[in-house]
């Protein structure tokens, strides 16, 4: 029985770590502009698809990963320049709707640039399962978890210790005041899209050995990542990770002990319950301006 419990837990952690990594990307753009970027899932997909096609073309994996991240960052900057910046005076809601449009556009583009098939990426360090008291853990899960932790630490450092990060937070609180203080708010928004795209790409690449990828994989990953981010408190890196793990483990335990038919329902009930009692999420700052 213990081994079954452990297996459910590991399965939940695997799925949860994937959601967490996808959720982290939402925080940067949110912090810079209070915009929820619904094209975040597409950044995840573009990162993964770029890496896959580069590896298939014979590029060594580490180089392919770096190039894929750069490609996705370029897409993020273009998205900001061509779609978000021209509408800068529009309300946050309008900007959010623009990102939804952008996500549909990027999905269509990916169909044409690549294809409609599923693709895979080899696991970074083999496929030999690690045995834990009768339950098995795949090495790639450790990669996903490790990368998620590193990304949170980097995010915390960026927002609290660097001038760029502080400028970004300042812009999110009061763009006008930030501008008067000499912060180039246009540039801040552009950097936030580039960084979010990079985060999405990193997440997409690390999880592809587990989930596979295809032009439309961004929808599900973006949505689950968004739920994780909202559950943890938007804009909070730690929150996205905890939120992702809670959703993942809840799904897996529900599938294991209740019935797999109800697993998605259980996850959503937990999200609803948390948001009713803690509208800003588990780690959200109280009094954050609501969108």
């Amino acid at each position, binding site marked *: 029985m213990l081994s*079954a419990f452990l*297996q*459910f837990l*590991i*399965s*939940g952690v*695997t*799925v949860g770590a*994937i959601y967490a990594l996808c959720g982290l990307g939402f925080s940067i753009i949110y912090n810079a502009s209070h915009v929820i970027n619904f094209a975040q899932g597409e950044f995840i997909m573009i990162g993964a698809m770029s890496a896959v096609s580069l590896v298939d073309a014979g590029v060594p994996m580490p180089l392919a990963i770096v190039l894929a991240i750069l490609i996705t960052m370029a897409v993020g900057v273009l998205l900001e320049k061509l779609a978000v910046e021209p509408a800068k005076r529009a309300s946050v809601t309008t900007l959010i709707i623009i990102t939804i449009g952008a996500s549909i556009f990027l999905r*269509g583009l990916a*169909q044409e640039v690549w294809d*409609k*098939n*599923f*693709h*895979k990426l080899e696991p970074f360090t083999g*496929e030999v*399962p690690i045995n834990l008291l009768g339950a*098995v853990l*795949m090495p790639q899960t450790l990669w996903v978890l490790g990368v998620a932790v590193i990304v949170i630490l980097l995010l915390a450092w960026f927002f609290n210790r660097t001038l760029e990060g502080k400028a970004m937070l300042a812009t999110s609180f009061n763009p006008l005041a930030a501008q008067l203080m000499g912060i180039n708010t246009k540039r801040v928004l552009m950097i936030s899209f580039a960084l979010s795209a990079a985060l999405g790409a990193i997440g997409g690449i690390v*999880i592809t050995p*587990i*989930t*596979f990828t*295809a032009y*439309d*994989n961004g929808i*599900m990953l973006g949505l689950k990542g968004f739920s994780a981010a909202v559950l943890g408190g938007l804009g909070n890196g730690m929150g996205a990770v905890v939120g992702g793990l809670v959703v993942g483990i809840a*799904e*897996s*335990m529900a*599938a*294991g002990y209740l019935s*797999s*038919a109800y*697993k*998605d329902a259980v996850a959503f009930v937990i999200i609803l319950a948390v948001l009713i009692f803690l509208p800003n999420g588990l780690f959200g700052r109280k009094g954050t301006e609501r969108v």
Partner: protein
Amino acid sequence: MSMKSWKNLASAAAVALTASFGAAQAAEPIKIGAFLSATGPASFLGDPEKKVLEKYVAEYNKAGGIMGRKIDLILYDDAGAADKASSFVKRLIENDKVDVIVGGSTTGTTMAAVPLVEAAGMPFISLAGAVVIIEPVKKWVFKTPHTDRMAAEKIFSDMKKKGITKYAMISENAGFGKSGHDETLKVQGNYGMTLVADETYAPKDPDVTAQLTKIKNTPGVQAVINWGFGQSPAVVTKNYKQLGISAPLYQSHGVASKDYIKLAGDAAEGVRLPAAGLVVASQLPDSDMQKAVVVKFQKEYQADFKAEASTFAGHAFDGLQMALAAMQRAGGTDKAKVRDEIEKTSGYIGTGGTVHMSATDHMGLNLSAFHMVEIKKGDFALSN
């Protein structure tokens, strides 16, 4: 909207073009209507189907058409949405005035078209899988692919040979998986099978080890059947191997493409599934009447599209061939006559098997159309 109006323009241009040709040639072109899910979530069905219809219609036209008449293919992309399919079918019937419709990549889009073609009296050959399309029999509706029920029966007869009586099932909780699950339950009694564990998952779930652990810990499971499409069967197969479950794993005909083996990698070794002859074309014995047809189709498809022809590509090929053959037998495009001739299709050897339709069977395939294959060394191996 812009795409729709663009298509309007394109079809208007096509109509104008063919009208001027028609005047010169006297004989009116035969109009074949098609609605396929060439983009969207079911594009792995619709995309190869579209390629096949376009390719073979062009080839017929190069050879002078049939009965001295050119063939006009009027094709719409419904992106997998039933509401779009319904409005395209209306357009095919009322505006384009086609002679026959071949299409409907998914059961959902097909069923959206059924009431329209029935009301209009339009012969319609569907390319989708589920039994509901032809059961109960609908006067104007036919289909080319095998049904999920047949796949379940084929799997059960294979299990029976191995002395298996207790099995577990893990299925996608949507569309194909759900229908396959239900059909399996309907026929299990005929083979003396008992379901001991029944698990589901969502089509895009990245991991199903929790469900598989439950199956693993259920006593008496002798084999496991997975119903799913696209990436999910590969996820199931990988997790199955990771957990080291020793019972044989059966997949459905939904994974009968090389993509599945590519995705699942080594974990797919030893997986068994029912598949059409097309999948194992070159391995069929020379005595198999289907061999020549499938080998030729596979070669032609690969030459043009640099990819292996999936069974879905084959469904479109069969649908087109049967529609054109029926028109030739009917000596024209009179809809009622064409319908009767499609129903009389007998002994047509296609990529899906040998078709014998009748007034009570609008698909005309039996279990012999399926071959049991096992995945060995990264390829499908015939294992009857």
